[in-house]
């Protein structure tokens, strides 16, 4: 074991250093030429959340108690997933020159883009969380907040798996990103984000339960909206059954098709 750690520790350290440097540069580059920097990137999700929260609770009168808290526990996670897939899918092609010029590990680029989005997700989330916590009837429990990082980590891993897989697919099939863009729009309505799964007709519920996006979002929703330890851990188990195989399958495909991927870049 010691030998294993000694052998891989320097490589892992360098890999993490490169991911951090790339993430930092992405953030710096993205906010450089904008009027209010990070504010604009975070403002987008906040506006979407505000509008949806108002429309579904005050116009459509969706029958969900504390709807704004319910929506908070799902919508921002969805925005993180959809934005990450949208930005990471074309990444290997758009940064092909860089990947082939310096033999940069493509996973560094994908992880850096994902971390960039994850930081924005967390900032937007905590900005919205503060007023919710101050609300006297807040459903958020301390025990739920304690396990929240686990759910967020699983969301990150699962999204990484999706992004890695789709970015590889886009190397071989250049229209993948356009098809995905359409599919993600459809998936938004088919994933219980702005409505609870209990609203889905019983005969269809099994199918909705199989939705991998929902499996990544549900643990977050339980930890924030109706935390119960039993439910949370079962949901985490289901979420992990989605996220880990996604990453493993992306790694296997990458390993098997690596030469062809570099050839196509």
């Amino acid at each position, binding site marked *: 074991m010691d030998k294993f750690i000694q052998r891989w520790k320097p490589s892992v350290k360098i890999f993490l250093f490169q991911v951090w440097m790339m993430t930092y*540069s992405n953030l710096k*580059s993205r906010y450089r030429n904008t009027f209010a920097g990070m504010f604009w990137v975070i403002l987008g999700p906040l506006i979407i959340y505000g509008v949806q929260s108002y429309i579904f609770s005050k116009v459509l009168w969706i029958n969900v108690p504390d709807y704004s808290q319910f929506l908070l526990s799902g919508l921002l996670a969805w925005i993180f997933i959809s934005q990450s897939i949208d930005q990471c899918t074309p990444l290997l092609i758009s940064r092909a020159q860089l990947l082939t010029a*310096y*033999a940069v590990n493509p996973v560094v680029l994908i992880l850096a883009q994902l971390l960039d989005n994850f930081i924005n997700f967390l900032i937007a989330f905590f900005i919205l969380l503060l007023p919710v916590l101050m609300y006297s009837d807040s459903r958020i429990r301390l025990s739920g907040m304690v396990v929240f990082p686990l759910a967020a980590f699983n969301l990150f891993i699962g999204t990484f798996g999706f992004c890695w897989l789709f970015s590889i697919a886009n190397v071989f*099939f250049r229209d993948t990103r356009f098809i995905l863009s359409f599919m993600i729009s459809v998936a938004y309505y088919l994933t219980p984000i702005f409505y609870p799964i209990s609203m889905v007709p019983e005969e269809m519920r099994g199918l909705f339960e199989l939705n991998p996006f929902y499996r990544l979002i549900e643990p977050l929703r339980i930890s924030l909206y109706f935390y119960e330890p039993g439910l949370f851990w079962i949901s985490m188990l289901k979420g992990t059954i989605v996220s880990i195989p996604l990453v493993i399958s992306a790694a296997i495909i990458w390993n098997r098709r690596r*030469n062809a991927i*570099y050839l196509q870049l």
Partner: protein
Amino acid sequence: MPSISSSNKREVLKIENLSLKFQLKTYQAISLKDVFVNFFDPDHEESISKLPPRDVIIADKLNLTINEGDRVALLGVNGSGKTSLCRCISGTYKPDAGSIKIDGLVRAIFDVSVGIDEELTGRENALLMSAFLYPAAPDREKLVEDALAFTELGEFLNAPIRTYSRGMRSRFCLALVSTISCDLLILDEVFEGADQFFREKISQRMINMIDRSGACIFVSHAPSQIDRVCNRAVVVGQGKVLFDGDVQEALKFYNSAGTSDASFR
């Protein structure tokens, strides 16, 4: 095959029976639409299934040893597999068979026209590039400053790299890559963008660097540059080493074989 006799110097690179091939269809860019059309109409005029199941041989049981102090010019016509061989050595491509043993650190650069992030300044890009070129160097920031001073780009270093001309990019990248010695340096047609004054300057810096330690593989189509930088030349073709020896003789062999033998490719 003429060959340079091995000396008592340290073997930096030893390639034994290296084989690498690509299926012809790997070169074809296809879309999901093509797959869809092909599924329903396999006899379509431009069907992807109509490509012959042929392999493109990059390396066929290729053997090559490079010793410390060797500055090896890699010669071969376009498509003879020079870049692919370099990518194998740098660890980008995985060989189908055979072994590549490198004693120490390998650094490869295949294109000097690309910055890591076009929005960032030259100075910021240099720091980011150093994280990929020499991540483990303890005095990384000092090395970057030394390299930047060598570029003579002055105030341009504080301008976004997207404003640089090809020549400026070339100066920038070559200075960074040659600032610290490594055991094996791979330079694939990287001098082409630099002006003749900087070529002279950088060539001397490269030679000094290689003299301090390690070896270099140099891919170029410019005989004068090869003559100036290299002390050995290898001609590749048909997946094998066709000539290994003195630079002038190699150039003669390359020129005569290139004009007389079509199968040289």
